[in-house]
C-alpha cells in the first residue's frame, strides 16, 4: 500500500519492521515470534482481559500488553525473560484452577489454546487444592451451539463477535468475579446466520457445535483450504475431513467446514449456510453410475462415456445446433467452462447451451449474496450466455446432456418427466442423486467443488484459484475430466484449458 509507514522495533534482540499502527503482538507474529494470547483477535480492538500476552517493554516498569501496545520506532520488546515467563505461567495457573480438565471428552482438545499454551508455556505442578467451582456444562444457547461454562475462560470473543460483527448482541457477561459467566438474555437465544463462527473463535472448548460434538477428534482431521461454493461471495473455507478412507456407503467424511482467512473477501468469517455445506459434500451423493436408474456394475467411467459420444456422433453435423442441447451450471470452474465452451460451442457448434442453477435467495448485509452459486461471474467471463432453458427449448431434440441438479429447481417434476421422455438420448452428470436420475440413459456421479481444483470469480470480480480439498468418492469424476473425455471421443482439440 502506498503511504503506509513502517517502523523498526526490536523484539527479543531481533530487528523487526512493522506497519505503523500495528500492535506488538501482530508485529511479533509476522516475525515468527509467538506471543501467546486468548482474548485478542485481529478482527477486534484489543480487549486486554486474558493478560496472557504481557511482555516487557524497555523503559516501562510494568509488563505491558502486546495486544494493545502499538509499535513505534525504536521500541524494545522482550518476550522471553523470566518475568514474562512467570506472568504467562501465572495466568495459565489461574485459568486452570477451576478448569474441569475434561480434555479427554472435550471436542476442542488438540486445537485448544489453553492446552497448547500450557504445553508450551505452562507445565507447572498444580497447587490448586480447593474444590473446583461447578458450573453449567450443557447450556444450549441457540443455533445448535452448546456452551460449557466450566471450560469458559471469559475471553469474551463470542460476546464481541455478536456485538461488533453481526450486531445482534445475543451473548453477554452476567454476574461478576469468579461467578462471571457468558449467557444469553432470557428468551433470546443466539439467532443469526453467522453463529457458527462462535465455535471457530472460541479459544477453548466452551462453545461447541452439536453438529461436531463427540463425532471425531481434532487430530484426525485433515484441513484443506477451498472456496465456498454456496453463494457468489467466494469465502475462504477450510474443509476438515477425516483422511484415509473415502466415502464408504454414505458415511461422513467431512466433519466440518470452518472459516478460512481472506482479507480481500470474507475476513475471518463465513455464514452458517457455507458451514452447512459439509452436508452438500457427504449427503445425498450419487453413489455410482446409473443406467436408467439401475446401478451399472464395473467398467471405468471412460467406457460409459463412449455411449455419450456415440449418441452425439449419431446426430448429423448439420442437425447438431438444433438437435443437441446442453445444460451447464455456475458451480463449474472457469477452467471447466472454458472446456465446455470449446467443446460444445466451438467444437460441436451447438446453439442450445443453457444454464440451470439453484434459485437465488435473500442476501444479508454481511457476506451472503443473492446468488446461490459460486461462479456466475465466471460464466460471464467465459463468454457463454447464462440463459436458463425453457421447456420448449428442449422439445424436438435428439440428445441432451445435463450437468448438475438445477433443472428440478426450475420446472415441475411432471413437466421434466414428460420432456425427458420425448428425448431419445439423455445423459446426466450430477454430484447428487435426484428424482430424475432413472429417466436418463446414463447418470454419471461427479465431484462437488471442494473435490476439484480450479478458479471461481466472485461477486466482486475477485478471481480465486483453489486446490482440491478432498478426494472425490469412488467413481465421482470432476466435470473437467468428463469434458476432456468427451472431447477426446469426439476428436475435438480443447487446447490448453488454462489459456483462453
Amino acid at each position, binding site marked *: 500500500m502506498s503511504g503506509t509507514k513502517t517502523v523498526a522495533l526490536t523484539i527479543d534482540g531481533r530487528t523487526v519492521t512493522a506497519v505503523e499502527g500495528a500492535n506488538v503482538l501482530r508485529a511479533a507474529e509476522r516475525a515468527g515470534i509467538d506471543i501467546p494470547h486468548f482474548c485478542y483477535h485481529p478482527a477486534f480492538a484489543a480487549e486486554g482481559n*486474558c493478560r496472557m500476552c504481557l511482555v516487557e517493554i524497555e523503559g516501562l516498569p510494568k509488563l505491558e500488553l502486546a495486544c494493545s501496545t502499538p509499535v513505534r520506532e525504536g521500541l524494545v520488546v522482550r518476550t522471553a525473560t523470566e518475568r514474562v515467563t512467570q506472568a504467562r505461567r*501465572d495466568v495459565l495457573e489461574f485459568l486452570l484452577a*477451576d478448569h474441569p480438565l475434561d480434555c479427554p471428552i472435550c471436542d476442542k482438545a488438540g486445537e485448544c489454546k489453553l492446552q497448547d499454551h500450557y504445553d508450551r508455556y505452562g507445565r507447572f505442578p498444580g497447587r490448586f487444592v*480447593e474444590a473446583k467451582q461447578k458450573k453449567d456444562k450443557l447450556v444450549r444457547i441457540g443455533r445448535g451451539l452448546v456452551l460449557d461454562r466450566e471450560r469458559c475462560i*471469559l475471553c469474551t470473543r463470542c460476546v464481541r463477535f455478536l456485538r461488533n460483527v453481526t450486531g445482534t448482541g445475543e451473548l453477554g*457477561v452476567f454476574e*461478576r*468475579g*469468579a*461467578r462471571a459467566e457468558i449467557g444469553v438474555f432470557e428468551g433470546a437465544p443466539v439467532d443469526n446466520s453467522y453463529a457458527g463462527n462462535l465455535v471457530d473463535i472460541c479459544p477453548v472448548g466452551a462453545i461447541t457445535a452439536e453438529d461436531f460434538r463427540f463425532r471425531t477428534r481434532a487430530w484426525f482431521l485433515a484441513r484443506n483450504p477451498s472456496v465456498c461454493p454456496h453463494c457468489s461471495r467466494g469465502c475462504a473455507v477450510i474443509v476438515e475431513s477425516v483422511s484415509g478412507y473415502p466415502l464408504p456407503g454414505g458415511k461422513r467424511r467431512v466433519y466440518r467446514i470452518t472459516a478460512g482467512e481472506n482479507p480481500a473477501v470474507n475476513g475471518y468469517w463465513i455464514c452458517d449456510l457455507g458451514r452447512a455445506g459439509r452436508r452438500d459434500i457427504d449427503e445425498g451423493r450419487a453413489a455410482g453410475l446409473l443406467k436408467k436408474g439401475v446401478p451399472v456394475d464395473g467398467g471405468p467411467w471412460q467406457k460409459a462415456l463412449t455411449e455419450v459420444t456415440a449418441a452425439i456422433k449419431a446426430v448429423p453435423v448439420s442437425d447438431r445446433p438444433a438437435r443437441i442441447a446442453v445444460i451447464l451450471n455456475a458451480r463449474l470452474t472457469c477452467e471447466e467452462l472454458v472446456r465446455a465452451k470449446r467443446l460444445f460451442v466451438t467444437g460441436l457448434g451447438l446453439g442450445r447451451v443453457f444454464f440451470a442453477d439453484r434459485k437465488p435467495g435473500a442476501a444479508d448485509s454481511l457476506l451472503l449474496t443473492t446468488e446461490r452459486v459460486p461462479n456466475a461471474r465466471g460464466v460471464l467471463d467465459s463468454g457463454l450466455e447464462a440463459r436458463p432453458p425453457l421447456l420448449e427449448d428442449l422439445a424436438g431434440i435428439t440428445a441432451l446432456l445435463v450437468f448438475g441438479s438445477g433443472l428440478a429447481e426450475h420446472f415441475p417434476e411432471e413437466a421434466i418427466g414428460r420432456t425427458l421422455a420425448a428425448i431419445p438420448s439423455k445423459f446426466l452428470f450430477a454430484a447428487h442423486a435426484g428424482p430424475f436420475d432413472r429417466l436418463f440413459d446414463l447418470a454419471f456421479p461427479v465431484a462437488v467443488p471442494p473435490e476439484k481444483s480450479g478458479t471461481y470469480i466472485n461477486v466482486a470480480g475477485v478471481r480465486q484459484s483453489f486446490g482440491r480439498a478432498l478426494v472425490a468418492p469412488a467413481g465421482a469424476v470432476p466435470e473437467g475430466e468428463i469434458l476432456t473425455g468427451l472431447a477426446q471421443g469426439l476428436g475435438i482439440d480443447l487446447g490448453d484449458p488454462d489459456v483462453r
Partner: protein
Amino acid sequence: MSEDAVRLIPADEGSWRLEAYLRRGGYEAARRAVTSMAPADIIAEVRRAGLRGRGGAGFPAGLKWSFVPQGVGGPKYLCVNADEGEPGTFKDRAILVRDPHRLLEGMVIAAFAVGIRTAVIYVRGEYERIAGRLRAAVAEAEGAGFLGRTIFGSEFGLDVVIHFGAGAYICGEETALLESIEGRRGAPRLKPPFPAVVGLFRSPTVINNVETLAHVPSIIGRGADWFMSLGLPKDCGTRLFSVSGAVRRPGLYELPTGIPLRTLIEDHAGGPPEGVSVKAVIPGGLSAPVLRADELETHLDFESMALACSMAGSAGVIVIGDRTPMLEVLGVMSRFYAHESCGQCTPCRIGTSWIHRTVTRIAAGQGRRGDLDLILSLADGIKGRTLCPMGDAAALPIRALVTKFRGELEQAAER
C-alpha cells in the same frame, strides 16, 4: 486547626439548604470564577494549590483538568465520583448530606474552567436513601440560577444529572463508572485512551471525587496560597479522615494533610477503648496496606504513606485492636475482593477467589503447610498484571497483612 479553616462538614442548622450555604458565603467563588476569571487562570490556580484527588489515587486535580483537549468540537463531561465504595470510607456521604451545595459549587467552577456543560453525579446505589438532599440542592441551585442554562447571567450553563450505581465496588474505578453511566455492565476499560481524551460517550471527560470538588470553592474563593498554608507543601489542604474500628470516638475528622497517624487516632478519635491496644491500622481504606502499631508515627499524606509502603488512599482509617484476630481481618478482606472483582481479567477474577477460598479453608481449620506462601504467591500473580487498579488494590493489602502478621496467622493456621 484554626477557626479560619474550611469546614467541609458544616455544623449549622439545616446546613444542606441553599440559604444556609449562602449565609456561609456559598456560590461567591463560583460567581467570581464565572463572571470575572479566565478558565485557564482557574485551572492554573487549582494546579498551584496542589489539590490532590481525594478519591484515593491522589492525582493532582488541576493537572487532570488540563489534560482535556481544548478547542475541539463536541461535548465534554464532568463526572463526579460519589460511588464511595472503599471499605472504611464515609466522607463523601457526609458532604452529600451536610453540604451538597459546596459540591455543586465546585462542579460549576470545574465545569467552567474546562468548558463543560453537562455533569453527572454518579452516586453509589446504597446512598439512594440519602440522596434526597442532593436532589433538592440541585433543584434549589437551578432555581437560583447557579445551575442551568445560564449561570450568573453569563453565557455559561451547566446541567447536572444524578445517576445511581447498583452496588458494585468496581464502579468506583473511573472507567467502570463511565461504562455504568452509559448503561453497560460496570467493567473497567483498557487505558489508554484516558477519560480526559476519550471518556463518557467517547467524549473528553473529567472525573473527580466529591471531596476533591468540594475543596475547589475555597481554593478559588480564598486563593491557592491560603490552601497551601494548610497541610504539607506537596500535599496541601485538609482531608476528611473517616476513622472506624477500635477507637473511642469513631467518626469523621477534617484535619490538615500530613498529621501523624497517632495524633489522629489518639488525640482526635480518643484512642482505643479501655483494655484494648492498637495492633494494626489500615490507613487509607481497605486497599491501603496495613501498618503495625510501631508504625503509628507515619504521617497521613500521600508521600509519607508511600514511603511506609502503604497509601493515604481514601483516608479511611480502620483501627484494629489487639483482640481482633488477623485471620478474621484477612477473611473479611479476601471475601470483599473476591466478591467485588468484576471478573473481567484473569488474575483478579481467579486470584482473588483462590485467595479467598484458601483463607476460608484455613479459617475452617483445614490449613496446610505452605498456605501463607501460596497466598503471597497468588497476590504476586495479581499485582501489576491486571487491567485496572483493583488488582493492586486487592493484592497489596493482602500481601502486607500476611507479611506483617505472619507469626499470628501461622499460629492461627496451625490451630
